[in-house]
């Protein structure tokens, strides 16, 4: 059970994560205006989005310190999600 002092430490982390998310949003918008080659254009945007998503999941959703059963549920979910994302590109040549 976390005490009030632990929660205060969390609050400082939440503020830091907010600043990081805002900064990454500005970076991703800025990068989109640079005329980068197609692969880098898409790659950078998705990498920044993944970092932002990981920050939200790890700190706001507390996945950085969650119980095993929750990780097990999400591992199965990620497996199917990756399959879903791979499916269109794998079948696009048919």
């Amino acid at each position, binding site marked *: 059970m976390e005490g009030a002092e632990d*929660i205060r430490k969390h609050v400082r982390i939440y503020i830091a994560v907010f600043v990081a998310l805002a900064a990454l949003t500005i970076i991703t*918008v800025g990068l989109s205006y640079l005329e980068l080659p197609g692969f880098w254009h898409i790659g950078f945007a998705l990498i920044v989005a993944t970092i932002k998503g990981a920050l*939200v999941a790890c700190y*706001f959703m507390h996945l950085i310190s969650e119980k095993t059963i*929750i990780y097990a549920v999400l591992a199965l979910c990620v497996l199917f*999600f990756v399959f*879903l*994302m791979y499916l269109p590109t794998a079948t696009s040549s048919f």
Partner: protein
Amino acid sequence: MEIPYAVKPHPVTGVANGKLGIWLFLASEVMLFGALFSSYILLRVGADVWPHGRDLGLSIPLATLNTMVLIASSVTMVMSWASLKMNNFGKFRLYLAITVLLAFVFLGVKAVEYTEKFEHHHFPGTNTFFAIYFTLTGLHGLHVLGGIIVNSYLLLPGSKMWKKDPDRLTNRVEYAGLYWHFVDLVWIFLFPVLYLL
């Protein structure tokens, strides 16, 4: 009748039943949005030419504003939960009220965007890009609306639970927060995919 393991962790899973329930629900939500993202990829790789959102009139400044609004609402949501953990009921209500307000701001900006599209005769049937744009943003908007309903309940009638069962209310706010952060997370990917790429 008392609902078992609403506060205490279940001896088998190690978490309260509500927490396992909300994560299973979120896993199903990942599959729902995953199927639509998969459709987006299929449409994009199958198209001869795929337009940039900005070339079709999508507003990057408005979408950036909405991204900031949702990120800020995620912070206020988690702060409302943290306030309950620190036994500060007043701040809990303040932060949750700001979260609901920011959610309305998000929908308001989205309404402005939609109106502008309709004025230019851009509808879901106009082309493949707008079909997937309206489907993804429309479904996401419905999720924002769902979050407003849940958070408004917790802010007004639901908060009465604080007097008789504060731990249970704290858990409820945590679960509502997990849903709300997921809605934010989906937008974090929708924003570059639809507006920037």
